[in-house]
């Protein structure tokens, strides 16, 4: 549903993306990975029309996103920017209610649909109990779920999230990713996220995009593309790729890079050559989802 044609984008003098052609599949959880400063956030911000490209276009269902009214785009595409500013003293329900902005006018500031959408978004993101709490008093994980609830209240087909798990501890990371996974599988939303953790990307993504220096190195299902060679090419890191014991998805284990680490290592893996490709017969895993 989202694609780019000959996209050139950057900041000030620096060109980050140079002539990018990309198609993001609809009804999939797409994860964009890559080393720092590879342009993945730039790509996401350009896709979300937060950044104006220097050249080329972003297409939303075939139409140039820049030529669509921004309110209309906001009804089809929800965006969670990287570390959004938490307004002081605003309650959870109030902030989630801001997600209804694209459906409101100053003379029609609230409707039954707005109320229903906010209710549902807060239930989905599991923040309904926090409705009356000021957002700035919540923990990092709770805040992130509130922001996701705000974008859910927008009631869009697609959601774009820029590093939604940064600054969260592991349990909260899993919680947020499980939520995104449920949105894809249970609600049929198209989800696109930039993630830092390759293993989480492999575990949750239907479609993985690996970027390096502003270009796409590989794109496809994680089990098909995530290999030792790809990690070396994209991150410059030697590693083992083994099937995850829980899900069977590819699991990236960095090779030993320091001799002092090797001394304490009990694993037989000793070098960068011992890559284990993920075969067809990897155990078909199920994604454990957090029960409510």
């Amino acid at each position, binding site marked *: 549903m989202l694609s780019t044609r000959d996209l050139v984008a950057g900041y000030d003098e620096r060109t980050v993306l140079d002539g990018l052609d990309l198609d993001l599949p609809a009804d999939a959880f797409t994860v964009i990975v890559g080393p720092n400063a590879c342009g993945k956030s730039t790509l996401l*911000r350009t896709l*979300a*029309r*937060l950044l104006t490209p220097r050249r080329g276009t972003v297409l939303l269902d075939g139409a140039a996103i820049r030529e669509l009214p*921004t*309110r*209309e*785009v*906001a*009804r089809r595409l*929800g*965006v*969670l*920017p990287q570390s*959004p*500013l938490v*307004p*002081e*003293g*605003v*309650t959870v*329900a*109030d902030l*989630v*209610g*801001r*997600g209804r*902005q*694209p459906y409101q006018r*100053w*003379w*029609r*500031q*609230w*409707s*039954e649909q*707005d*109320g*229903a959408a*906010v*209710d549902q978004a807060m239930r989905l993101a599991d923040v309904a109990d926090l*409705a*009356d709490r*000021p957002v700035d*008093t919540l923990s990092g994980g709770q805040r992130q779920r509130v922001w996701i609830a*705000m*974008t859910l209240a*927008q009631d869009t087909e697609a959601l774009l999230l820029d590093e939604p798990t940064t600054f969260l501890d592991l349990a909260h990371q899993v919680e947020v990713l499980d939520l995104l996974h449920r949105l894809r599988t249970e609600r049929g939303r198209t989800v696109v996220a930039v993630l830092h953790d390759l293993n989480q990307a492999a575990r949750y993504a239907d479609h993985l995009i690996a970027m390096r220096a502003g270009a796409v190195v590989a794109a496809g299902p994680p089990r098909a593309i995530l290999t030792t060679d790809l990690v070396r090419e994209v991150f410059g890191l030697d590693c083992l790729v083994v099937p995850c014991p829980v899900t069977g998805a590819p699991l990236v284990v960095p090779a030993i890079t320091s001799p002092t680490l090797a001394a304490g290592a009990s694993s037989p893996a000793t070098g960068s050559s011992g890559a284990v490709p993920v075969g067809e017969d990897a155990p078909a895993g199920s994604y454990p989802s957090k029960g409510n």
Partner: protein
Amino acid sequence: MSAATRLAASPDTPSAVDRLPGRALLRVGPVRVQIRRRSVLVAVALTGLLAMAMVLSLSLGTPYVAPADVLRALSGAGTPYDLVVLNLRLPRLVLAAVAGAAFGVAGTLIQSVARNPLASPDVIGITQGAGLAATVALTSGAAAVLVAPAALAGGLVAALVVFALGTRHGLAAQRFVLAGVAVAFALRALTEVVMLTADPIDGLRAQVWLIGTLAGRGWTETTWIAGTLLILLPVLAWAGWALNSTALDDDTAKGIGLRPVARRIGLAGTGVITAAMVTAQVGAVDFVALVAPQVARRLVRAERPPLLCAALLGALLLVLADLAGRRLFAPTQLPAGVLTAAIGGPYLLYLLLRGRRRPS
């Protein structure tokens, strides 16, 4: 239509509509406006206080007119006090209320957009720009009718300079307030130079203008300010709603379909025009635009200053300041600007100290 006005949803029956805590929906025909329940209370209370202060202001003075006679004179019944109440005191009083409200509106708009309680027109140079232009007009022998237009132009130009210097990284950056304070100091220094080199009598007139006073002013000034507010009324109706999004960062605002830069220009521009206009008419009355929005915000317990309550509070502050200026050291008359500074400064300090101790 008259019966269509009602407050929907009470706190004990949480329906799907009533998802916003502390808010209610005001329905007037097809129009649906979110209002804070608490701001309704505060607005009603402020209106009552303002009415009392206005009657008091019409009543006190020499001669004293009993409040009952004030009300009779206002109702047009024809009393012996008509001259004092309607011709001498009322024009100045209405000007105080309208100018105070305009200061409250201007302060709310600029502070909200800059996300900084210090970003008020009397701190960031708009008042000082108007002051310099007025001083030049008053000391250069220009016609008296030119003082207000000159001050209006001076305020607008100063605002443009501050915005040009301070908005490289969006208005919210501290840079904006710093640029404003710097411009304000530079303009004040220039004003001093103009005053010192001028004829002493002209310098004194400029001095009085710079403090800001309502003495000898009335319907003409009121018409200019009220007319400006009236023309801006559709914008202000929109602003009451648009101000809700000023607390969001630009990416989040764009994500929910807003155009934050256009919004800031619209809101701040409205505030600047209002501030320059009211300053041009009543002089450099300090602190009302700074204090009224912040006190109103604390009364309403909102995350940003509420437009209507700040206007009412601004009106109340200036009416009381003018009354105190007239009566405290009677027969000596103090300009309203002296009183607003004397009350406003310490009160803001008190609020800052109190606010710091509160956990929230």
